[in-house]
């Protein structure tokens, strides 16, 4: 199965892939907890959230394939692109770490995704608008679940608080990328296909500030924000995710069951 390389995808296609890749990679990361979560209840909860993300990714890849033509399917995007072709933000590919890392990553992402899906329900791309309407409800639960855990870990035992603080410090540098606007996004925002992520920054900040205030934790000081994922420059972790995700289709091209 040859590698799918997209040379200069249209802004519309790139935007769909950025959204889809965020969801696929975060969904994959969460699915890594299956069978390993701290308790049975959380094992299933994380798997549920993983399935929400992967479901959104599939719908977005479908729309991308429709736009792309050439007979591509959702599977081509998931299984045939190399790391350089993936356009997810770096935050979602960060390793699961301990449970606090997973919860903090989820809260930081979902607190952005919820208001962003909400504005995308007005997208001039009717398919994006429909996916956004469904995903907004799912994201509301993701914020609630990760937010409730954040409070209990951040304001729990000394151990859980130390771990939550460490996770916050480790992941905060990856939050700037969520709100980046570049030459790909600008024309789409003007056309109404995409929404301006900067327009939801205040809501995101408020959600995070409330979560922090409830625990007494503070925003970590970071010297700069990490960036690169939106143009295919990833951390070393994405390659390992793809090795896991794509092995079967790469080794046995077109295999079905």
């Amino acid at each position, binding site marked *: 199965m040859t590698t799918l390389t997209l040379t200069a995808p249209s802004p519309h296609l790139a935007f769909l892939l950025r959204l889809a890749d965020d969801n696929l990679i975060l969904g994959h990361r969460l699915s890594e907890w299956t069978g390993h979560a701290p308790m*049975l*209840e959380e094992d299933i*909860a994380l798997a549920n959230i993983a399935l929400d993300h992967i479901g959104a990714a599939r719908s977005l890849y479908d729309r991308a394939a429709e736009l792309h033509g050439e007979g591509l399917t959702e599977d081509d995007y998931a299984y045939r692109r190399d790391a350089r072709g993936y356009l997810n933000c770096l935050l979602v590919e960060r390793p699961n770490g301990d449970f606090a890392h997973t919860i903090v990553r989820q809260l930081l992402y979902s607190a952005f995704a919820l208001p962003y899906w909400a504005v995308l329900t007005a997208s001039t791309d009717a398919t994006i608008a429909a996916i956004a309407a469904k995903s907004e409800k799912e994201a509301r639960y993701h914020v609630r679940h990760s937010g409730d855990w954040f409070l209990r870990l951040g304001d729990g035992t000394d151990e859980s608080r130390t771990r939550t603080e460490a996770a916050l410090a480790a992941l905060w540098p990856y939050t700037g990328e969520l709100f980046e606007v570049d030459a790909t996004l600008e024309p789409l925002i003007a056309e109404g296909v995409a929404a301006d992520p900067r327009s939801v920054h205040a809501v995101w900040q408020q959600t995070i500030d409330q979560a922090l205030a409830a625990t007494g934790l503070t925003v970590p000081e970071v010297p700069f924000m990490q960036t690169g994922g939106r143009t295919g420059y990833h951390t070393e972790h994405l390659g390992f995710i793809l090795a896991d995700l794509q092995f079967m289709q790469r080794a046995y091209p077109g295999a079905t069951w």
Partner: protein
Amino acid sequence: MTNLTPLWEVFIRTRNGMAHRHVGSVHAADAALALQAARDVYTRRGEGLSIWVVPSNAITASDPAEKDEMFEPTASKVYRHPSFYDIPDDIENM
């Protein structure tokens, strides 16, 4: 683990007009997380419209050793069952 995450009994109402039914239990640190755990564990296939969670230790249960005095006396009182009436043919749902 269990002292930090006690047991909660889960009751789910599947449709409007139905009663909540006991479906099982979850471990959770507090009521809010118990509700989420119940949602995640027991309503994955669209089973629920409403969930109750109750601390398991808040339930007072009958003693199985007392089942004779508790339940035996009703066994001989068949006349309490509404089965001694002829239902007219025109009544479709009873």
